[in-house]
């Protein structure tokens, strides 16, 4: 990966970028922390409490639509950013959001081994474990073991593919539609789609199961 970075040294995306607003937020946070007005741990605790609340659950709606509308699903798998942009209700997704489909033969799982790139516009705030070094490093070497830790047991004959996010490309897993949901509306289906199922570390809820 470092080789890769050298090769693209002058590429626009090679360095980190923060929006004007993010710069102001970081400036304020640094000053308040230095002056002792804010404890980073206390701030994290407040933010953690809302990690699943950020973002209007765009990802779940996109997945539910793909389950219900074959034409949309085809478009989504061809060009994720374009298909999601066409829905109009997502204010911004990355330029290169790639949607990978789970099938009876293949399970997908997303990781960023470099940092913690994460399509938060689709999924909300990243969970703490996603950013943790053990998840990032183990996911590539031992995906089956990591999935087992999440309580996801996959039969041996199912291939597991791990997608490593990069500066330009982020991934969203399209989980398989649960059985027993024939005739369900998109709104009902969206209720079944969990964040973890779109990272590939879980499955959608099953109909009738307590949530």
């Amino acid at each position, binding site marked *: 990966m470092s080789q890769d970075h050298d090769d693209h040294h002058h590429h626009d995306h090679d360095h*980190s970028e923060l929006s004007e607003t*993010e710069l102001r937020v970081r400036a*304020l946070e640094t000053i308040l922390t230095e002056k002792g007005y804010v404890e980073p741990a*206390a701030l994290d605790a*407040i933010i953690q409490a809302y990690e699943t609340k950020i973002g209007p659950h765009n990802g779940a709606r996109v997945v539910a639509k793909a389950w219900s509308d074959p034409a949309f699903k085809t478009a989504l798998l061809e060009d994720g950013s374009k298909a999601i942009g066409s829905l109009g209700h997502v204010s911004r997704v990355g330029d290169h959001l790639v949607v990978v489909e789970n099938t009876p033969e293949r399970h997908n799982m997303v990781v960023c081994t470099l940092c913690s790139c994460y399509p938060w516009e689709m999924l909300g*705030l990243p969970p703490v474990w996603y950013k943790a070094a053990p998840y990032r490093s183990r996911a590539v070497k031992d995906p089956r073991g990591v999935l087992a830790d999440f309580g996801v047991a996959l039969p041996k004959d199912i291939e597991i593919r791990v997608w490593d996010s990069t500066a330009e490309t982020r991934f969203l897993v399209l989980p398989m539609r649960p059985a027993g949901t024939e005739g369900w509306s998109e709104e009902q289906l969206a209720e079944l789609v969990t964040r973890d199922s779109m990272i590939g570390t879980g499955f959608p809820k099953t109909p009738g199961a307590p949530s």
Partner: protein
Amino acid sequence: MSSALAAAATAAIPSIPRDDDGPVFRAPWEAHAFAMALSLHERGVFTWPEWAAALADEIKRAQAAGDPDTGETYYLHWLATLEGLVARKGVASMETLHRYRDAWDHAADRTPHGKPIELRDEDFKA
């Protein structure tokens, strides 16, 4: 404990976007801005009525300047209120805020993608 703090804030500031469970955010930075206001209030830097008045002023100012007030910009007003109160209460001047903002910009520029962005002394000298 943090949820009790948040509940006090949402009770005091009725305009905070929320659902049945509490505040909702559109982006991670919004949660940071929200959490900073909670912490400053907790430290006694301002009261909620004081905050509400300052936020209302900020929103009025933005609307006069053509803000569409669709709710999408709510936390931008929140952030501007934070900066204004922090300056007015003598916690940090606007000059200091700008200096740190520029330093973070410099830090982001020199940090390759994939590495955590960290502020260093050199970022203030650039």
